[in-house]
Structure formats: structure tokens, C-alpha cells
């Protein structure tokens, strides 16, 4: 406790554990802690994302102007606009938002339970594993099980290998990072193998399986990620209070009744499912899950996993990267994963040089 906060008995029992936290009570049972700063940041990011989404829909020769968009929302648009919105650009932007939310949440969960800013699905090869699972399930054994199931299996195997290889679970950041590189390489090799055998030489398809792409999405993709989020987000919310306690250390968490081991296992399972859902609709898009929680924490300056903000940041990153991939000169037509890999890599390099060098 700092000197400026006297611990007097007169203070109300809802004394915030951290400065700046308010408690919102809904009825008898539900209490939600919130911070004004976080709420402001979330609102700003949502507005920004709205602008980018409208821009994504409006830009280019097939674009839908904001005026037409409003008409379409009222159900009064002409056939061309409806077609573009329902078949071409609408599914794409919705998939981007959904996958971004899922990746941001997965990253925040992982970084929270590993207490490691690098312990994200990208670094431990989870995304690549899910990508390999998608490649196997769609190209090798088509029809045996659907792509999302393949993604979950691939992601689970990748996490399992990392967990086993470190010899100490996810406790040591150094070991997690290095085994992650190995698992990433093996998963990529599987994808190369499957695509080489199944597709021969269509490099564009290979790129989509390897780096993640949002091209030619349809409403089925939106449905997959939508259902995934609807099912998983409530579970994440239920877990979020215990995650906040986990930040104080395993011993404190146990004392407060949040079983550290159980919480960690549940959070990792949720993260695997979220990342797999994202990968099955967008491919293994790199570095969104790594950077989103990181940026979220900087913006909110709050401890803990910052789940809401990480989700919104993830969506914003993916939407803006996809806007670049669609419209930026020189990038147009590239898979979105190339944009996020380059930008995320540069961001990671910046962190490496300026923040983590001690």
C-alpha cells in the first residue's frame, strides 16, 4: 500500500483492490469491476474499428458508400449492393472482427496464465499447429472431420508437445519460447507436406494455409467464428475473476480460493479453443494474439489480463491489417497474414530492443 492511501476503518467495504477501479453492481449476484480509463479506451477503439469497417466496405471499385450501407441496413439497397455486402465484403469483415476477438482473448489468457508477455499462441506454435490441423482435415482427409475440429486437435497437440518438452509445464518462459520454435517448425513442415501432396503447386493456396488469409470468406466462416465466440466468451467471463487473482501469484491465488492449477488448465483450454476457432476461419494469422494483449495493457495501464480490451484490440488489428492487405499499394491482394507477420515482427523487435533489454 502506498502512503497516500490510509487504511482507515471508515472506508467502505467495496474498497478497490487497485486504484481507479469502480464496481458495477447488477442486481444481487453480479458485480463487475471496471475502470473509467479502460472503458474510455474500449469506446475509442470501437469507434476506430467502426470507421475502419465502413472504410473497408466503401473503398475500391466494388465499394459500398456509407449512404448505400445505411440503406442496406434498412433493407432498401439494390441487388448489387446487397450481393457485395452479403457475399463478398460483409463476410470478410465479420470474419476479421470475430477472428481478431478470438485471437486477442486467446493471447490474453495465455499471457496471463504463463505470466509471460511472450507466452502467446504465436510463440508456442499453437497457431501453426492449428493451421496444420486445418490443412490435414481439409486436404488430406476431407470429410472425416470438419476444419474447426482439425484446428482444435492441431492446436491441442502443439500445446501438448510444448508442455511436455519443457519438462516443467509452462513455468519457464525461456524453455517455452525455444520449444515453441521447434513446434512451429514441425507444424509448418506438416502443412508443407500436406499441401505439397494434395495441391501440388498452387502457391497461393499454400500461402493461405501457411500464413492465414481472409480472401473469399462466406457466411459459413462467419457462423463458425460467431458460434465459437458465443459459446466461449461466457466461459472466459466466468474465469476472468480468478485470472485477476492469479496475477498475484499461485500462493495468494490458492489462499483466496482460486485453485491455481485448475484455473490455469481451464484458461489454456479456452485459449486453445479460441485460437483454433480463429485459425479455422482465417488461417494461422501471426502475431495478433501476441501483440493485442500487450497493446491493450499499455493502453489501459491496468494489471491483469485486460480481456475486453485485448479482444477489441485484436479485432482492430486484424481489421486494419486486412484493410491494408486489400487496398494498400504494393500489398493489394496479399494474404492478411503476411501483413500481420511483418508488422508484428517489427513490433516484437521494437520491444526486444527498447523494453526488454536490461
Amino acid at each position, binding site marked *: 500500500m502506498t502512503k497516500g492511501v490510509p487504511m482507515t476503518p471508515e472506508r467502505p467495504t467495496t474498497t478497490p483492490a487497485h486504484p481507479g477501479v469502480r464496481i458495477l453492481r447488477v442486481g444481487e449476484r453480479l458485480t463487475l469491476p471496471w475502470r473509467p480509463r479502460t472503458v474510455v479506451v474500449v469506446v475509442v477503439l470501437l469507434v476506430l474499428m467502426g470507421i475502419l469497417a465502413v472504410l473497408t466496405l466503401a473503398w475500391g471499385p466494388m465499394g459500398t458508400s456509407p449512404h448505400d450501407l445505411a440503406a442496406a441496413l434498412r433493407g432498401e439497397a439494390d441487388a448489387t449492393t446487397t450481393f457485395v455486402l452479403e457475399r463478398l465484403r460483409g463476410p470478410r469483415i465479420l470474419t476479421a472482427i470475430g477472428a481478431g476477438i478470438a485471437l486477442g482473448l486467446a493471447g490474453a489468457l495465455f499471457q496471463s496464465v504463463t505470466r509471460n508477455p*511472450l507466452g502467446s499462441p504465436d*510463440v508456442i506454435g499453437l497457431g501453426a499447429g492449428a493451421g496444420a490441423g486445418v490443412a490435414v482435415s481439409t486436404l488430406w482427409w476431407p470429410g472425416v472431420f470438419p476444419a474447426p475440429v482439425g484446428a482444435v486437435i492441431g492446436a491441442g497437440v502443439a500445446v501438448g*508437445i510444448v508442455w*511436455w*518438452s*519443457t*519438462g516443467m509445464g509452462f513455468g*519457464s*518462459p*525461456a*524453455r517455452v*519460447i*525455444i*520449444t515453441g*520454435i*521447434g*513446434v512451429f*517448425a*514441425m507444424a*509448418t*513442415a506438416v502443412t*508443407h*507436406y500436406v499441401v*505439397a*501432396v494434395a495441391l*501440388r*503447386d498452387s*502457391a*497461393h493456396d*499454400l*500461402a493461405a494455409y*501457411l*500464413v492465414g488469409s481472409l480472401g473469399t470468406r462466406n457466411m459459413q466462416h462467419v457462423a463458425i467464428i460467431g458460434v465459437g465466440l458465443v459459446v466461449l466468451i461466457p466461459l472466459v467471463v466466468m474465469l476472468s475473476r480468478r485470472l485477476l487473482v492469479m496475477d498475484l501469484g499461485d500462493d495468494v491465488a490458492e489462499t483466496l480460493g482460486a485453485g491455481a492449477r485448475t484455473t490455469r488448465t481451464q484458461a489454456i483450454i479456452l485459449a486453445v479453443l479460441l485460437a483454433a476457432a480463429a485459425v479455422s476461419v482465417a488461417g494461422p494469422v*501471426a*502475431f495478433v494474439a501476441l501483440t493485442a494483449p500487450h497493446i491493450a495493457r499499455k493502453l489501459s495501464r491496468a494489471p491483469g489480463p485486460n480481456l475486453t480490451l485485448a479482444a477489441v484490440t485484436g479485432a482492430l488489428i486484424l481489421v486494419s491489417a486486412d484493410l491494408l492487405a486489400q487496398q494498400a499499394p*504494393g*500489398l493489394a*491482394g*496479399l*494474404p492478411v497474414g*503476411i*501483413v500481420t*507477420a*511483418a508488422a*508484428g*515482427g*517489427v513490433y*516484437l*523487435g521494437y520491444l*526486444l*530492443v527498447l523494453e*526488454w*533489454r*536490461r
Partner: protein
Amino acid sequence: MVGAAVVVLALMTVASLSLGSRETDIARMLATLTGDEDPFMQQVLAARVPRTVVGATVGAALAVAGMLIQSVMRNPLGEPGLLGVTMGASASVVTATAFFGVSSGLATVPAAIPGAVLAVTAVLLLGRQSGSTSVIPLVLAGAVVSAVLGAYVQAMILTRPEVFDSYRHWMVGSLAGVRFETLWTVLPALILGAVLAWAMTGSLNAVALGEEVATGLGVRVQWVRLAALTAATLLAAAATAAVGPIAFVGLAVPHLVRAAVGTDHRWQLPMAVLLGAALLLGADVAARIIARPQELMVGVVTAFVGAPFLLAAVRRGRVRG
């Protein structure tokens, strides 16, 4: 031990000459080699002899590069690929093809070297940490540089049709269709790297005893490190230029070498040459057989053979956090 390694390499050579995505008879192959006129086998051998020679050379170069990096950094995770050498070389060649009109083929090979050197320098600068022996910043810096360069390479390949054909070649290494001419163009870099590596073996033995001891023995530690890293970069860049990025040979082979001949670098070097060549030939044979009647890229196989070495090294606690 060296004798055993020679036998293994000889076996792998015979396998590489006789096994392929189409089955061929070993007896016919040997008869053709000794002068028998069999047009089909002659054609097959015309493809497989260069493939075998180049494969052995590349494997040896990568293994020696890995051995040098591991002893200079005193870390079992040193690997040309982890330090960004291979992606640097790939990016460099793709740039030369896309912007400077260097058509694919022989002229691209020298173009790989500056990219590899730049990438290693960037990784070493990014991952530099004063007073720390941890390898994590370096590995992380290597991953960052490789990720950015990989994105660049993919972007160039997908937007430029003239580079598009060589897509696989610059993402995953392959020995398919490789010719002797490729080897001649990288030979100067290979010889320079090999000579430098050989000249450094004695000094590396001294450095392995510790910096103070080495200085006491009259060895200039910083110069030895620089020379060894230069040799490793030259060897790995030449190998990548010839056949594309091949992962984990440089990581796995030095582990085997140390298990076989111990810590003396004068024995490690020839052993790394033999085992590196044998491993890559074995991986290439596997790449031809696994997916019959098609062929895999050998880089896919080495990732699968080599990455478990990385995982095992971590699990056995050889990695200092």
C-alpha cells in the same frame, strides 16, 4: 568413430543414387556406373549424381556452420536458421530476382551472401545483452528477423510472377533438379568458409576452456569468435543459395558429433562434415520415398528430424533461462 561415420555416409550415398520416387534396381545402377550402357539408368544417374554430390556438400556445410556457432556461443541451440542466416539469404536472392533482374539460376547464388551477413548482424545487434549468457534474446531476435524476412519473401513471391516459380525453393529447401553448375557458383564461398573453419579449430579449443585461459594462451578471443561466425555465415549462406533454406541440420548434427568424438574441434570438424552429409542425404532419400510417386522438399523432412533434437535438448535441461 570416424570410420563408422564414413561407412554411414557411403551407405547414404548408395541409397541416394539408387532410391527415388521411382524404384530402380541397385545392381543395374552399379553396372551402369561401371560403364554398362543402359539409357534409362544413365538418365536417372545424370540426375541423381549431381543431386547426391550437392546434397552431401550442403549438409556438410550446414553442419560445420552449426558446430561453429554452437561453440562460439557456447550454447547447444546455435543454428544458422535460428540466427536468421537462411531467411536472410532467401530474402536477398528474392530481392535480386525481383528488382535487379537477376534471372533465377546461377547468378542468384552470390546474391545470397550479403543478405545472410546482414541478417546475422541484425540478429546479433537486436539480441545483444550486456553481461548475460542467456541465449533467449538471440533466439527471439532470430525469430523476429526471420518472421519479418519470411513475410517479405512471401509478399514478393506472391506479387511477382517472375519470382513465383521459385516459390517452394525459397520457402523450403529442396534438392530436386539441382545441377553441378549450382555447386560451382557457391564453391568459392564454401572453400573460403571451410578453410577459415579449419584454421580456427585449434583456437576454438582454447576458447572453449574459457576466455581468461584462452587469453592466457595467447588467443585473441574476439577475433576467433568473429572469424568463426564469418566462416559459419559463409558456409550457411552458400548452402542456402544452392538449395534453399534447410532447417535444423546445423542444430542436430553437432549434438551427434559431440556425442561421438567429444569436445576437440579438430575431430569435431571432419565428423561434422561426414555426419552432416550423411544426414542430409538420408533426409533427401526419405523425401523421395515418403510421398511416392511424388517428392517432398528435403527441408520438410529435416524440420521433422531436427526439431525433436531441439525439444530434447530443452527437456534435458541444456537450456539456461
